[in-house]
């Protein structure tokens, strides 16, 4: 997307896309805020099991959380590489970020199938409904991010991602860090602080 400014004048000196993107992140905060609030208000209210205590595998998810955290680091390095025009490391770090994101998705897919096998589906109880919709919505965001990063990677491979396009990477980075931060909140709320009656 290009900006339709008069000449290149902007009122704030900031890139217009970046401003729009921060607005977008604001609305994403409300989206996840609503999902998390619903999760919290229904926590411990399921009338049948399985409960989070019975089913959540904290060690496993800690690993995937770590993977996602590392991907944010890779993202920072990718942006730095693009900005200094280092095509080789641009590719390396973009690829790393995307792959780490994909690994996270694989973990999530594994977790979901595991849960279904153990008898937790979206229709099983309130926990199932709130859990799958919340984490599924996050997973969808990661998926979009991975595709986005893959696109940047291809652009980079074709030599079309020079320093002048750094803003493209910066915005993708904003998105990626946001998705990461949201996961930290979800991980804390859903996995680490479990409330409500134990099994």
């Amino acid at each position, binding site marked *: *997307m*290009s*900006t*339709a*400014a*008069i*000449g290149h*004048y*902007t*009122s*704030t000196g*900031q890139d*217009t*896309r970046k*401003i*729009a993107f921060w*607005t*977008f992140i*604001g*609305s*994403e905060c*409300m*989206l996840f805020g*609503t*999902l998390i609030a*619903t999760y919290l*208000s*229904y926590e411990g*209210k*399921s*009338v*049948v099991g399985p409960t989070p205590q019975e089913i959540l595998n904290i060690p496993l998810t800690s690993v995937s959380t770590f993977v996602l955290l590392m991907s944010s680091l890779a993202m920072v390095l990718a942006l730095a590489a693009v900005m200094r025009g280092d095509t080789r490391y641009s590719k390396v770090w973009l690829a790393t970020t995307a792959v780490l994101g994909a690994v996270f998705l694989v973990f999530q897919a594994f977790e979901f199938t595991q849960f279904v096998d153990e008898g937790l589906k*979206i*229709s099983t*109880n*309130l926990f*199932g*409904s*709130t859990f*799958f*919709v919340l984490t599924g*919505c996050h997973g969808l965001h990661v998926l979009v991010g991975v595709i986005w990063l893959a*696109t940047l990677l291809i652009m980079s491979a074709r030599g079309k991602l020079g320093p002048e396009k750094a803003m493209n990477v910066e915005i993708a980075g904003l998105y990626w860090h946001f998705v990461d931060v949201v996961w930290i909140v979800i991980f804390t709320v859903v996995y680490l602080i479990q409330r409500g009656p134990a099994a």
Partner: protein
Amino acid sequence: MEATAATPDSLESSSRLWSWITTTDHKRIGILYGATAFVFLLIGGLEAMLIRWQLMKPDNDFVSAETFNELFTMHGTTMIFLALMPLSAAFFNFIIPLQIGARDVAFPRLNAFSYWVFLLGGLFLNASFLFGAAPDAGWFGYANLTSIQYSPGVNIDFWAMGLQILGIASLAAAFNFIATIINMRAPGMKLMRMPVFTWMAFITQFIIVTAFPVITVALVFLMFDRMFGANFYNPNAGGDLLLWQHLFWLFGHPEVYILILPTMGMVSEILPTFSRKPLFGYPVIVYSGILIGTIGWGVWSHHMFASGMGAAADTYFGAASMLIAIPTGVKIFNWIATMWGGKIRFTTPMLFSIAFIMLFTIGGISGVMHASPPTDLQQTDTYFVVAHLHYVLFGGAFMGIFGAIYYWWPKVFGRLLNERLGKLHFWLAFIGLNVTFFPMHLIGMLGMPRRVYTYSAELGVGGMNLAATIGALTLGFSTLVLVYNIWHTAAKGEKAGKNPWGAATLEWAMSSPPPVYNFSVIPEVTSRLPLWTVGGMNEIPDVPPEPIHVPGGSYWPVLAALGLVGFFTGALMHSLWVALAAAAVLVVSVFKWAFEPFEM
């Protein structure tokens, strides 16, 4: 998609269908928004006429219960999401870039996308009539009436998905306008020099950005309940039915300020122009708008006083709701003070704006009566609420919009709407409105609930209902006068110069209709009222600048919109294949769009 060289009159000359479909010009998109929303207004109004015909007398059987329930649901949904919001959007599109001295909005193709998603979403919702399955659970669709158990048909699917589609359109537009207003103001156009209309639109966009995600989530829950057996609104699984109400009104109350703030902005432009006096207390009007938008977030549960939330919650939500009377009152008094000592010309836009103040005050006062939780226990879900909501929405928002239509029409089309017909429209609407909605206060207090397709003669409200119906027919007729006026003006309307009303803001500094590039040279403003201040801005010559590039057209936004709506259609049909195919169209279009050369 080459950037095309601009021709000054391209707005009029290229009337080919294709150029409209692929247009990314904010002015044309504004016109498309306006025309589409106006048609939906006629449809929503027609539904209102049928509602009133049914309620004309007790025990009437003009339509069946099922049809009636569809009518009021679609009437409310249509008026709010398909008529009023997009009519405001029409003005945002056309006027904001002109008022802030920009050449277009920040993201012209995203803007086109918003429009097409809105159009297709509106068609999607109304297509339900073709299948005899129009939504029928009321415009706020309380769970669990909307659950698959109590609403097994596709009626609710149409509604839930239609609203999600429309939400996407509104969100996309809101990101666009916020970026535009923050970043694309002409040199010298400081925030506190922006016209109040742009200010109120700006605040509105923030409310949209924060409120729409909430209803989107609520609707996703509903869809998952209906399609995959999730339990969000299932009390038997431990779910709480108030969850829906909280989420809906958490969106729904800010939504009413989304509807009224733009109109408050319009009125704040019209009153000074025709009083020939600057707006009284500009900063206070701006700040009170911000305050309304902010407090508006903390009062949602005043729609739920009968749901038994407890005394503490009632106290808080009652008091918080009443607080909004203060910033609103400040606006009202400042508007009157604007007229005080002025040189008032009673043109049609001015009449509508003055009527806005009168009628909105009535609606605001009945709002404060609702805000007292104990007495609301008698008012809620009766015709008293129907009276309140129409006084603020029709007496308020729509009167303001009508004023704005007359006010900006010459700027948009270069011809003035006929004043005599305009005044006829005004008086019919003003009288019709009061005859329709004033008796409803009493009808409600005398015991008639809302959303009833029939009522017993013994309630004693038959006469007043007949009066309301007569008023409604008058209102319907008044709208037809506007339609005639538009048709008449197209052929015989008086040509408008640059600034037919002698207004003060930037959009009146260029020819009417504006050239496709808007401003031939970059405007530089030094005043809040550039056209009323000596040296308020630089001269804007009428010759096209050299060289100039304006965005070319693009059909990818249309295709992306089709893909998006197709996806929901697939979900509605429970057809994975349709959904996947449409999603593919969406993804491809977005990629094409992102990589399409689109230079300015």
